[in-house]
């Protein structure tokens, strides 16, 4: 702020005249309105509201006026400056909005560009199928039991009523290990897990055992030396074949769709008596006009697995009293179930490890 300027004759201070102040205001407002962008407005601000602007200079002259004139001049200039600042602020926000709008337009991208910078991973469909099946049974209250794949001969065979001279032993082409006198095999079925379960848990027992098993089958479109099975075992008081049927019907409808049931045919397994083959109703044709159905090859039913009432001899070998408890067991191929559930005709892609195969199934099925 300047001090009183005593050298001037106040009467001669023309910039403070009303018309002069009005002219400054008009000039400033016009320049503000004309400023095309923020840079121009910045210059306008300097020119018309800055320290060296006419109105700022005029303001300095107020002190030179006689006291009685100062008030009036001060008011006049103050009002003008207020109007100019207001206009500046208004114009500033308009120009800023315009600027932002223009910037956003300039920043437009092609959103159709590919965005997959990192490859997606996936889990193996057999893992997913095993977990899905396990979950269906866990939901019913079962637990998931496990055991080693390199297994004692006694647990894989003898404990399951498959004695050393049982003809059924030749039905399962077994991988034996050396030295032979160690009596160690690659398990041919997940049934040794059932034996382990019976040996380590007390009834009531409700378990499923998914896992890898091995047979000396040459590798082709429908055979593999390694494949996956899931077996179920229930041992409780009063368990009958009807409970087995009910459980498998429920399992089938959960895995293949509402209304899909099973049927039993007599069969033979040493560890169950009575034994049955279990077929599942074809979930594609539902045995309606089955002749043209590819999935069941015109049968209306698909061979699914084996099952039966646990042979009391197995219960005895595992220390469960067959006078008190009875049970059922069932087993089916996870790979096979996967194949017909997902329309896969040749099983080899399951074990070839081509990432294009697993990737097609993502992380859940």
């Amino acid at each position, binding site marked *: 702020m300047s001090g009183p300027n005593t050298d001037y004759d106040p009467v001669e201070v023309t910039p403070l005249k009303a018309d002069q102040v009005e002219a400054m205001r008009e000039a400033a407002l016009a320049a503000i309105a004309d400023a095309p962008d923020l840079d121009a407005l910045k210059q306008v601000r300097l020119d018309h509201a800055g320290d060296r602007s006419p109105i700022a200079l005029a303001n300095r002259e107020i002190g030179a006026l006689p006291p009685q004139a100062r008030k009036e001049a001060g008011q006049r200039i103050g009002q003008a400056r207020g109007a100019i600042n207001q206009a500046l602020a208004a114009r500033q926000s308009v120009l800023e909005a315009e600027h932002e709008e223009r910037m956003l337009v300039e920043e437009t991208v092609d959103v159709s560009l590919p965005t997959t910078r990192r490859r997606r991973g*996936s889990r193996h469909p057999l893992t997913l199928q095993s977990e899905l099946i396990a979950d269906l049974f*866990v939901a019913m209250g079962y637990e998931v039991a496990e055991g080693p794949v390199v297994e004692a001969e*006694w647990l894989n065979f003898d404990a399951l009523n498959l004695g050393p001279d049982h003809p059924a032993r030749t039905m399962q082409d077994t991988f034996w290990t050396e030295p032979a006198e160690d009596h160690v095999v690659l398990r041919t079925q997940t049934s040794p897990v059932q034996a382990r379960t019976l040996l380590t848990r007390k009834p009531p027992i409700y378990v499923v055992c998914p896992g890898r098993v091995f047979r000396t089958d040459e590798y082709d479109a429908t055979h593999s030396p390694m494949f996956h099975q899931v077996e179920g075992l229930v041992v409780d008081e009063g368990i009958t074949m009807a409970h087995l049927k009910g459980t498998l*019907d429920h399992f089938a409808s959960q895995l293949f769709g509402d209304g899909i049931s099973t049927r039993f045919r007599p069969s033979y397994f040493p560890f169950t008596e009575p034994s049955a083959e279990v077929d599942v109703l074809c979930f594609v044709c539902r045995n309606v006009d089955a002749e043209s159905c590819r999935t069941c090859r015109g049968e209306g039913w698909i061979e699914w697995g084996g099952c039966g009432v646990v042979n009391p001899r197995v219960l005895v070998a595992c220390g469960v009293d067959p006078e008190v408890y009875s049970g059922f067991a069932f087993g089916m191929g996870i790979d096979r179930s996967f194949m017909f559930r997902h329309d896969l005709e040749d099983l080899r892609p399951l074990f*070839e490890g081509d990432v294009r195969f697993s990737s097609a199934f993502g992380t859940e099925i």
Partner: protein
Amino acid sequence: MKAPLSWILDLVDVPAGTTTEEITDRLTLTGLKLEAVVSPGREITGPLVIGRVLTMEPEPQKNGKTINWCTVDVGDANGTGEPQGIVCGAHNFAPGDLVVTVLPGGVLPGGFEIGARKTYGHLSAGMICSARELGLGEDHDGIIVLPPDAGEPGQDVRAVLGLDEEVIEFEVNPDRAYALSLRGIAREVLVSVEGASGFRDPALRETPAANDDGHPVVVEDSEGCPVFVARRVDGFDPAAATPDFMVQRITAAGMRPISLAVDVTNYVMLETGRPIHGYDADRLQGAIVVRRAREGEKLTTLDGTARTLDPGDLVVTDDSGIIGLGGVMGGETTEISGTTTSVLVEAAHWDAVSMFRTGRRHKITSEAGKRNERGVDPTICEAAADRVVELLVEHGGGTAHPGVTVVGTPPAMPVVEVAGDLAARVSGMPITEEQSVACLRAVGCEVSAAVGGSGTLSVTPPPWRPDLTDAQDFSEEVVRLVGYDKVPSVLPTPPSGRGLTRAQQLRRRIGRTLAGEGFVEVVTFPFVGEADLDALGLTAEDPRRDLLRLSNPLNAEAGFMTSTLLPGLLRTAGKNVGHGTTDVAIFETGTVTLPRHAGPAAILPVDRRPTEAELEALDAALPAQPLHLALVGAGDAVSGGWWAEAQPFSWADAVEAVRAVAASLGLEVSASAVELAPWHPGRCAELTVDGEVIGHAGEVHPTVCQAFGLPKRTVAAEVDLDLLIARAVHLRTAPTFSSYPVAKEDVALVVDDTVPAAAVEAALREGAGALLESIRLFDVYTGDQVGEGRKSLAYALRFRALDRTLKEGEAAAARDAAVARAAERTGAIQRA
């Protein structure tokens, strides 16, 4: 088992109008599963007719053969009524004979199309057929000459030859050995097909009583051979042909017709289920003796194989030595030949277990062995031998020798106590005791109620059912006849379960984590060969060389269970690269096999629960089988594109993937340098959690990359998931953190190249004390400014106190303390 329908219906009647499908459907439901219904002539199409040979002109050829140029009357079958000109190479016929003629347009088995073609200077329009050309047998010595009353020329010949016969193939379960015979199948038809009746048991016949005139037989092991019956046919014509019906039935059943004497024994075996052996009686020397083999004895069996016998083998001997492997296969010296005129017929019952062991020991699978090892009706030896004698006499022109040798008696069937309500309790169906009794009697059991009306039945199985030994076995017989399709569907009510175990949940979490990191799960076979371990560059002392060997691998190159997942995974990665997926990230979880060489896994008894000690010993004898995780990355980890350059896989990606897995379990992994195959010696990290080694990760050795068809800089990791999962943090503690302002301090430290960054960081952390909130290495610099053999590590440190704003200088003091500790521990010098 393949059974011609006509043969079945010879033995049992079904209601008129019953279709083959109705019969097979019922049999399938009661336990004889239909495999297929086929006709022997299914592959033959087009005109196949009776022809009468009108003329035949033998014409010697330059190649030494003589062909016959024939004219054959085929009636109107050729459309002209004119005789058909056909060249024929066989000579076993004469003008006037009726022959089987296939005309142009016909197709024989094997897709053999018949046309009119120029051959040996004639236009031969068709072919005169042999049995083999029609798929009816192996006989190719001549063409089929039909009986004079077979029919008229031009008539279709299929029915005459049995080519349109329906042959039913059944899958026979090991417990139903009786169904390996027409007798057994007909009996199943009787009990399964509604309205079936009139079962004619081919083994139910009057047989002559045993006498002392028969061939002398001594059975030294009556447990191994409880019954031995010998009969003899003399004056047999070795040239006698097997009747057509027998050839057709034997062929349809899948066996090969050989000669009348052999064919008759096979025919009776198929009919009754009882294997029969025929000896050339003139080549037998002295009494037949049945005994166990002695150590080192040898026999050349009918298949021409010289075998060294085992003391467990049952043998048939005469004065010349061993003449047969009892019940399994005969010997060469007494084999029936083209000059045999006297046949000694043996029908003997053999111990099934011994048969099974001998068959397995000598790797012999024969039709006789298949039946004997599953169990045959021991009561029908005399009937079967008598049936053979009858057929040999009838078709071979011989006379039955009056001598009948019968040694031993059939073992008695056991009497089994069966609760009257067992079938109901097992099946969940309301089966009454009366129903059970009816079903059991239908399958041939004798049933009588036990004393006092206790609800217990005394059941004696029929002699053809040696599989019925336990009460539960009889319940299956009842339930299958009542019908498996009638079993109701009832859900049991399990107690509340505990869900997945923690380890099961964590394994799923690990899989999801790796999928989230961009890895694709694969499943490979766990078989490995030594060459695979060589390819990994494992040293001779590497513990992973200790492998469990398979006795019978499918592929000798992969004869072991693997101790590491890497060979399979590297091979799989290589295959993907080979298929054009050049950027590949895969993982696998699976058990590996680490032998413990702890001795045999005992064969424990089965009549009681093993003791805890026995079970522990059993588990201890198995190899360790930890669950491993392995992963491989090759090519680009992050793809290049409009956003940035591609980032190739680096050793760090392998370490980071394992860190991600560990982090998902709440664990932190430390890495330190180690040299281990198959990794790059300078780029392999030994990974530890709380000081325990859990695995390794890094860049794969370039030689190994090359061996597996992978690009250089491929990365891999393998860790023991069991160790990780065992350490997983179960309940994580909630964190507390400061909301006061942070103080940031950056330091750059110069150390020797050989100093691990992890050591510098550990020293900084220790020196900085409790105020240190975090530390991050943000730059590693090597170059002129720090000098040869040195590197500069730049760290950003953040300091904060939980309860207050730090005072001026506090953070700097902590930083200086950190740097001082790093200097002391690692020789670090702070860069100006």
